[in-house]
């Protein structure tokens, strides 16, 4: 047991650096994919056929591509186009591009839970598409969107570990460093698991709070 705690205390800085980068990567990709995913979701429910087609193509293309390929594309292929982007930024962009497709589908399924008559009544009052969406449909769709949205974000938090394969020092990269230092892998992996559990707890709490807050809204 002493050995187990020693692994953490002896390598504290590495754990701190790794998990700090994981949290950074997560926060940037969370905000980015929420914005991009909402835009894509709005396209998929819009009355303009070209926008609907674009949204559907994006989702089908990106959702069916393995995340490692999206990473490889951004880390190896994009710099070849003379775009100056470092590994950390590439990883954030790759996660955002990939997660947006899932966020888009969560938004779309949430919108579909709102009765068609709500949007129809709003249009009959003379509201524009943007007003119908932001004033009437999305506020009522939020409640249904919370549980699947949290699943998407928890999956994304864990997906950040793929960045380790592309030279980004985050939590997923810790085992390789520890192997070089000759630390016992079993203890290392347990500590990383505990770290992720701690990171996921606030997300679960947030889900509880939002579900409770929006329960009365109907």
């Amino acid at each position, binding site marked *: 047991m002493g050995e187990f705690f020693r692994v953490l205390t002896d390598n504290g800085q590495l754990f701190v650096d790794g998990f700090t980068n994981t949290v950074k990567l997560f926060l940037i990709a969370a905000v980015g994919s929420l914005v991009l995913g909402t835009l894509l979701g709005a396209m998929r429910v819009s*009355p303009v056929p070209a926008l609907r087609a674009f949204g559907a193509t994006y989702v089908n293309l990106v959702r069916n591509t393995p995340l490692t390929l999206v990473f490889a594309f951004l880390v190896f292929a994009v710099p070849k186009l003379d775009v100056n982007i470092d590994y950390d930024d590439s990883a954030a962009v790759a996660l955002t591009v990939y997660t947006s497709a899932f966020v888009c589908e969560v938004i779309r399924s949430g919108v579909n839970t709102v*009765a068609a*008559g*709500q949007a*129809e*009544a*709003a*249009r*009959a*009052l*003379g*509201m*524009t598409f943007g*007003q119908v969406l932001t*004033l*009437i449909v999305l*506020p*009522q769709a939020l409640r249904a969107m919370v549980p699947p949205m949290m699943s998407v974000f928890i999956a994304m938090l864990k997906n950040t570990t793929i960045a380790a394969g592309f030279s980004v020092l985050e939590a997923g990269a810790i085992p390789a460093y520890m192997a070089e230092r000759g630390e016992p892998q079993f203890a290392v992996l347990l500590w990383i698991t505990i770290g992720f559990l701690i990171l996921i707890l606030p997300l679960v709490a947030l889900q509880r709070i939002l579900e409770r807050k929006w329960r009365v*809204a*109907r």
Partner: protein
Amino acid sequence: MDDVTTGEPLIVLDAVNKWFGPLHVLDDVSLSVGRGEVVVVIGPSGSGKSTLCRAINRLEPISSGTITFDGQPLPAEGKPLAKLRSEVGMVFQSFNLFAHKTILENVTLGPIKVRKEKPAAARERGLALLDRVGIANQADKFPAQLSGGQQQRVAIARALAMQPKAMLFDEPTSALDPEMVGEVLDVMTSLASDGMTMVVVTHEMGFARHAANRVIFMADGRLVEDASPAEFFDNPRSERAKDFLSKILTH
């Protein structure tokens, strides 16, 4: 109640056709509604009367023909269409009050967001309208806390808050318990006598008889009869209308 109309008609449909796939739901329908006129549309289910009503504010796009409102052809989409819809009030069978907004917010949302009115002014007029339909004391409740009849009266107030040039009613009492039909029809009757231009799709023959200027009878997507209520109910010309009336008036 004859000859209330003055000047050019407010709503004109000319040779309107509409298909849902192979189904011909509106078959060469032409109709004009004058300012201040109350037109009641009746007919068996599936006759196209709801589609006709919904086509007037383009909630249902038509396949061919033209519809003009207040001298202008209906815009196809975008801002001009939104503007037209803001001038035509619509009341639905299923009320469609905004479930996440209070009764008062339901009535003031359109004026504030679409007409860009000051919230205080919109609120004042909203409360006056709620008072007129007899629900002022429920202003801070949510739609689900009201009875069907109350909800439908709020829906009428919501449409009136936009100060529309005409009102469309798509079977406004069909989803109501029988004892609540009267309170909604009372509000509609008072609107009609105030001179509002109204197109009303309904099965309420009593309302058609006493509040309508004209009765339109539709069957199989066609406009079969267009007559005054007395003429239509006492002396229908078509076999289709005679058959329909014999089925609903014998009970």
